[in-house]
């Protein structure tokens, strides 16, 4: 195969622009391979971030032809249009340089949503594992939302984050939902308060871009809907 891809890559910071390169198209080629080829052979100053190469670390997400994706697991054939690719950094995050964003705001919100597990005071470190039946309703909900890799694709795809930079965003709220359904967790009342504020779950307009784009096929929109239900119930009981 001797076909050539025309690839426009973002260079610079928020005020930067696109630079075009011709990249040989191959049989087995991901978007990350295209970016790596440009850096290795065409523009050694191109900045991008990746790590695991197999969709586990969530470091290499970018916008490809306008859509946020994990680039290591996105085959060129699936996304190239007329032999063209446009590659930009994720939206809704500050650009460090070229294709690299500063993900600190994304993870700060994860913490503001009280995502981290809070150990139960009744369960010492050396206690045996809690007995948790996998078929239970809460555990099933938690399981369905648990395998987030923190790639930022949902956050970059979310219109509400674009409109309201304070909004906690789908990943942080999805994480909070997991812990609200974790019967081992000792921090649930405080977490529910943290996600019930103006920038929390009620800010979601249910546009579902997060669910549409999640590469792990999670459903953050449903997680957020779950938090809304919990929040309403708690408010009715005067417990928020």
């Amino acid at each position, binding site marked *: 195969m001797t076909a050539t891809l025309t690839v426009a890559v973002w260079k610079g910071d928020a005020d930067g622009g696109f630079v075009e390169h011709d990249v040989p198209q191959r049989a087995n080629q991901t978007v990350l391979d295209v970016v790596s080829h440009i850096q*290795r052979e065409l523009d050694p100053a*191109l900045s*991008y971030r990746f790590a695991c190469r*197999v969709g586990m670390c969530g470091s290499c997400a970018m916008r490809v032809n306008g859509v946020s994706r994990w680039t290591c697991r996105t085959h060129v054939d699936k996304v190239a249009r007329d032999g063209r690719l446009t590659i930009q950094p994720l939206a809704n995050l500050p650009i460090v340089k070229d294709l690299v964003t500063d993900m600190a705001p994304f993870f700060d919100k994860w913490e503001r949503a009280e*995502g981290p597990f809070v150990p139960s005071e009744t369960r010492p470190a050396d206690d045996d594992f809690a007995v*948790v039946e996998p078929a239970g309703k809460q555990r099933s909900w938690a399981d369905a939302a648990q395998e987030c890799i923190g790639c930022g694709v949902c956050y970059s795809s979310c219109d509400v984050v674009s409109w309201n930079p304070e909004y906690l965003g789908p990943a942080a709220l999805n994480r909070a939902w997991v812990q609200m359904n974790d019967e081992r967790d000792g921090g649930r009342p405080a977490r529910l308060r943290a996600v019930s504020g103006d920038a929390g779950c009620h800010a979601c307009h249910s546009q579902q871009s997060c669910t549409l784009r999640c590469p792990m096929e999670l459903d953050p929109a449903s997680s957020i809907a779950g938090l809304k239900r919990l929040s309403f119930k708690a408010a009715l009981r005067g417990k928020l």
Partner: protein
Amino acid sequence: MKEITTDILVLGSGGAGLLAALHAKQAAPDLSVTIAVKGLLGKCGCTRMVQGGYNVALAPTDSTERHFMDTLNGGKWLNNQDVAWTLVEQAQVRIRELENVYGCFFDRNADGTVHQKAFAGQTFDRTVHRGDLTGIEIISRLAEQTWATGVDRLEEHRAVALIRNESGDALAGVLMIDIRSGEYVFCRARAVMLGTGGGPTMYKYHTPSGDKSCDGLAMALAAGLALRDMEMVQFHPTGLLAGEHTRMTGTVLEEGLRGAGGYLFNGDGERFMERYDERGERATRDIVSRGIFSEIQAGRATPNGGAYIYMAHLGPDKVRAQFKGMVKRCADCGFDLAGERVEVIPTAHYMMGGVVFDERCFTSLPGLFVAGEDAGGVHGANRLGGNGVANSTVFGGIAGDTMAAWVDRAAPLAEPSQAELEAAVAHCERPFQHSSESLQPIREALYDLMWEKVGIAREETAMHAALDELDVLAGRLRGVGVDASSRAYNVTWHDWLNLASLITVSRAITEAALARRESRGAHFRSDFPEMDEDQAKTFTVVRAEGERLVAGREPVQYTRLMPGESLLVEDATADEPMPLADAPGPGTSTA
């Protein structure tokens, strides 16, 4: 150069680094603890990529002793028995801590108790897991806790040299590059833990995360530390083979595919594994890797130079259901694992070797501690699947506790050796003295050389040639320049530094592989294909002497058991009662 100061500096944010930071901060909240990592915290390195799980003896019918025996048998008795015992004993503490304190949630049985699955090479089903994405669960939960704990974070800070004091008898701090700004940062610290992880990415086919480049081991050699067991590089038999131009090549297709009854075919379409082992495709990792390698050597390779894995005879729908993650990964990359042949190749996976250390994570350099894949001796000549993440989390936590107790806040910080600082900066500056060129020819030459000459089957003459070629490559790298238009997030500069580390550690592997003139565990010599009981009694040690690396051998200390002995009652002969609860059994002996 920017200077910062901390009490405890942790390098790396895998299982070892995060546990070390969390434990140090918990044990000594008034000490400043800083974690520096080459990528984003918890998002780079290899613990995150653990699929299999966490070996730990929990069931009433399992035992610490049984896990210990499996670990020694897997390691072909080269292990440091004291650190191996600490691994199996403390894994039972750490796994409960991961669940109860940090919030990891591992898979349960239907009755709500923790599920433990079977994993190769073990006599008991003891592997705790979260589906086949165990590493994501462990690292995500640990990273969250680290953000919430007041540990200082230096993300995208790459360590380049361990800097000793003026007299060279203790560590003073670590020279780093802030990847985002390109600025040098010297971090003075009272204690430093090396937890950057090994990762044999000098081989053409490799599984570790793409950011890995053996920096920790290269820095340890430069600081005068000894590395043991460096010849022991574990290959996984079935890495994806998709061409040289794609980063997908080398990534693991899981072991369970063969376990479930998957076939391997050579390029002529023959099933070949039964020629090498009566268990066929279900033979151990090292045997299957050598089988595939032999077919390739015999000219029976697939178009891309490997073998095929084939699952469809088991029923494509069944395969899709049982190996959902693997099938989807292959599909994303354009392959139909459930219905068609997929090309595979043995791929370098894990380094058993590393810095000599003890069960409290001390090294020979005061102020430097080590844990995880950078540390050597736990696994001996081969590692059991599921002992890797147990190793990093167990010893990371221990290192954190040890450093918190060891640091003397009243003592003055050591003054760094200016000569060492200058030499380290000069090394990093070197590529800016030449005009920019592609690094790809050097990278490919290194990949090919290590794969062909120091890979799955090794031989004296080829390895001597490899040493010469590595010297040539080091010289070529010194003459290649990197684009100097901006140092900010200059990926190519870091590629250059990665290659420098990899060439150094490749030399260490080759020297150690030459020194072991027998085959044992992961190390196979085609000129010495048998095990040799005399050489079984020593482990290899590689040190830097000036510009050279020199391999020596040191006796294995049988502190708990002599080869052939067992701690298990069922292994005992009738007239030879075994020590179990009574000393001098494990858990009571040795400091």
